């Protein structure tokens, strides 16, 4: 069951695990908004090391304000980044 719904505010966990992961450092610790749920998929952090990837993890498209991601961001303040993040990296931040 997916824990988050579109519109939920979430913060990305800060972590640098020794195994393969797909949550880049530049979004870690940042707060964004869930845009959509893509579905549930096998966990690449297990698949990357010969595991079966189970249990499947919900995968969301999460949207961030670009100026919040980059110091001195030179583009428009309205620029956004949408990035796919697995649920176990997300911390609820309330509405």
């Amino acid at each position, binding site marked *: 069951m997916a824990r988050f719904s579109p519109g939920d505010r979430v913060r990305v966990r800060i972590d640098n695990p020794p195994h393969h992961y797909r949550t880049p450092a530049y979004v870690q610790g940042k707060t964004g908004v869930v845009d959509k749920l893509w579905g549930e998929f096998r966990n690449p952090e297990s698949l*990357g090391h010969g595991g079966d990837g189970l249990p499947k993890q919900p995968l969301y498209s999460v949207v961030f304000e670009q100026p919040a991601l980059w110091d001195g961001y030179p583009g428009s303040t309205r620029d956004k980044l949408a990035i796919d993040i697995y649920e176990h990296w997300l911390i609820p931040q309330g509405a």
Partner: protein
Amino acid sequence: MTPPENRRPNDRGGWPGAGPIDRSEHEPTFWERRVDAMQQLLGRKGIAVTDENRAARERTISLQDYEQMRYYDRWLIGMQTVLVGKGILAEGELERKVAEMEARSSG
């Protein structure tokens, strides 16, 4: 160039001093297509999934090598590492084969 917080070379976005992104494109070369096809085959035959190849190249390639390698060079290292790890290729088998072929083509 130093990755922040001991990040591995693949976790690349936002490193200071990286400069602009090279956005030039090229048609895939025959070699690049073959490397890509090889990885697809490993997946379809149930030998290694993409994530295993990714994990292997992230932990095998040094920062300096990673920066200098072409994209598909990294793929090859990843596949080789996985196949040796699974005992499908013997340690040094590829290098021996390459030496053998080089000797043949120069002889």
